């Protein structure tokens, strides 16, 4: 039997890395088990001539398409939005766009302000120091002073406006609408051992330059140097409990596929809004017959995705195409509730600079705007290098029927039941998406764009996995308390996006990590009576 560790963290992604680094100063024995391995930037797509093709195969954002041994399958047949993620040290920060907005203060009080969903048990101010700390650790770039966003202090200047940004900015100015350079986790200067961005363009499926921050190159090197043990290729099957109903440790499969038991005094789950409920539901016992920490029945429920309404078109001027980070600007013009629009809550916008030639050809052929035959070449030259995009990130409100359960048949390579998604887009979200598409069309037409195309929702757009083990003060209406400890098991914590109460209308990674740092801080302050 292995010696027990003080703290066992499951998952080495965005939140697992942050909580590990923060707790390292306690000098406790901290172990993180990660089902994937360390990444090798020399193998990243942008190092090869076939960089675009790889996105359709081993570098797909979908684990079902990718099918690496580190991935687990997900049955998302009953969802118009498919789950995308990445499994490795760094988790899905290896494969994300690096767009870095924070939830707004109003996002924590939606019940009070708008009479829908629930308020969070904490407010924005509680997270402020951790947002700042996280921005320093991840290394953000941006321009402080956006009047419609929370105040940030990015340590690096914003990305260049580029060709696409200027076209978008001019159109937004004509319409009198808000826009601002996005905060991003793309380094615009050399920073903490990372090289500055050189515009490889293919940011989402990993950055060979190391300019895009992912936790394998930000938090983890610091955490490992501080003494945290990170064990890779270890897939946790279940969390076990002792006779007192406390977490005793985890059963996992090591890199050789051998079943192991690792005892621990504290267990922290950091597996995202799909992986976390899957693990809890797989951790059934006589004492917890409906899954661990599930006395509320809410484990897996209230899944929120952020339906993306995307619209794009083609302008006469050249755009940045694939020669720049894909996102550069945001707008918060429609972020707050205005009931005259016909829906409650709102959406953030991220503008997209363009696409590479293979992606352009494949997608345009599928959309029917790029013909076969003799006219193919003329049309392709009109489209390629001229694309501008608008994506609205619509706030998804929690609904209990949107749910992660266990698939009765599908299993991963270790025989562990896979997650199954049941999800529908609400009427409120549909109205929001339609509103966003209409605004996006106005912007694109003002910019002179033609051949306008729509993806609503973006089908492979389930990046943001939120709400499936929600935070709250009432054990009957929530899974974890206001500092991340499960109501049912006093030495079990959750720090990932599953604890979100509502989703806001922005990319959530910044807020997920701020929450993880906040929970780590709460744990450190309560070490003497952590289990009371």
């Amino acid at each position: 039997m292995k010696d027990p560790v003080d703290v066992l963290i499951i998952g080495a992604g965005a939140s697992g890395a942050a909580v590990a680094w923060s707790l390292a100063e306690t000098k406790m024995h901290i172990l993180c088990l990660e089902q994937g391995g360390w990444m090798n930037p020399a193998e990243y797509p942008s190092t090869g001539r076939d960089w675009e093709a790889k996105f359709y195969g081993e570098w797909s954002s979908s684990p079902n398409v990718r099918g690496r041994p580190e991935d687990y399958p997900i049955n998302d047949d009953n969802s118009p939005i498919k789950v995308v993620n990445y499994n490795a040290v760094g988790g899905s920060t290896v494969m994300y766009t690096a767009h870095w907005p924070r939830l707004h203060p109003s996002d924590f009080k939606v019940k009070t302000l708008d009479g829908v969903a629930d308020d969070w048990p904490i407010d924005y101010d509680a997270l402020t120091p951790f947002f700042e700390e996280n921005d320093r650790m991840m290394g953000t770039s941006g321009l402080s002073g956006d009047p419609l966003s929370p105040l940030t202090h990015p340590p690096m200047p914003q990305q260049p406006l580029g060709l696409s940004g200027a076209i978008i900015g001019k159109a937004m100015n004509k319409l009198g609408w808000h826009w601002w350079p996005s905060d991003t986790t793309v380094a615009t200067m050399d920073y903490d051992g990372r090289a500055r961005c050189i515009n490889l363009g293919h940011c989402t499926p990993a950055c060979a330059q190391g300019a895009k921050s992912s936790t394998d190159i930000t938090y983890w090197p610091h955490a490992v140097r501080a003494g945290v043990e990170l064990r890779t290729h270890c897939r946790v099957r279940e969390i076990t409990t002792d006779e007192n109903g406390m977490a005793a440790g985890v059963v996992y499969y090591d890199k050789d596929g051998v079943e192991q038991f690792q005892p621990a005094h504290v267990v922290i789950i950091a597996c995202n809004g799909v992986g976390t409920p899957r693990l809890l539901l797989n951790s059934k016992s006589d004492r917890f017959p409906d899954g661990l920490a599930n006395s509320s029945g809410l484990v897996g429920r209230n899944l929120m995705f952020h339906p993306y309404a995307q619209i794009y078109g083609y302008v006469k001027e050249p755009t940045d195409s694939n020669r720049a980070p894909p996102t550069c600007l945001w707008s918060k013009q429609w972020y707050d509730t205005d009931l005259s629009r016909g829906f409650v809550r709102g959406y953030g916008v991220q503008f997209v600079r363009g696409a590479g030639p293979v992606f352009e050809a494949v997608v345009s052929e599928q959309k029917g705007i790029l013909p076969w035959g003799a006219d193919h070449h003329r049309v392709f030259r009109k489209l390629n290098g001229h694309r501008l995009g608008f994506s609205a990130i619509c706030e998804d409100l929690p609904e209990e029927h949107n749910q992660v359960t266990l698939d009765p048949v599908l299993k991963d390579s270790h025989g562990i039941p896979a997650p199954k998604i049941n999800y529908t887009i609400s009427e409120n979200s549909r109205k929001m998406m339609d509103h966003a598409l209409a605004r996006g069309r106005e912007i694109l037409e003002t910019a002179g764009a033609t051949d306008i195309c729509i993806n609503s929702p973006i089908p492979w757009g389930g990046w943001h996995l939120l709400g499936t083990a929600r935070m709250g003060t009432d054990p009957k209406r929530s899974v974890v308390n206001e500092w991340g400890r499960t109501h049912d098991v006093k030495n079990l914590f959750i720090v990932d996006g599953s604890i979100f109460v509502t989703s806001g209308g922005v990319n959530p990674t910044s807020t997920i990590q701020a929450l993880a740092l906040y929970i780590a801080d709460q744990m450190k302050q309560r070490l003497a009576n952590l289990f009371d």
Partner: protein
Amino acid sequence: MSADNQLTRAQRDDLRTIAAMIVPASDEHKVPGADDPAIQADILATLGRDAKLVTAALDHLARLAGQPLAELDAARRDAVAQELRKQGGAAAATLVRVVLQCYYRDDRVLRSLGLELRAPFPNGYVLPDGDWSLLDPVKARSGTLRRAP
């Protein structure tokens, strides 16, 4: 078994024929068609995980055509191709995608488009900083963040 051998000769013939229908050669742009031997060789060598769906698409195509695609008259060939694209689902989409992804990485094609013949890394690209005075109207308009209680 090499990817080359995953397709029968008849399937490879049909692949070449339909690739030329998707992207024919152009004297105007000085580019080969997607039936060019080098592009076809690239497709066959890199089919990999797409081989199953591409094979399914070519089987579907063979059923629709009833004979080698190249032997049909032009009108019938077009009708078969349209039917495949309309009814072929994920398999047909994959077939078209593998043709396009190999075509648009061919040196001659990239050169014709004015693109550099290299991977993005390690040289990257230069991005103009742009005119940030465009942001002045937004700063002047200001605005307020919604307050939370």
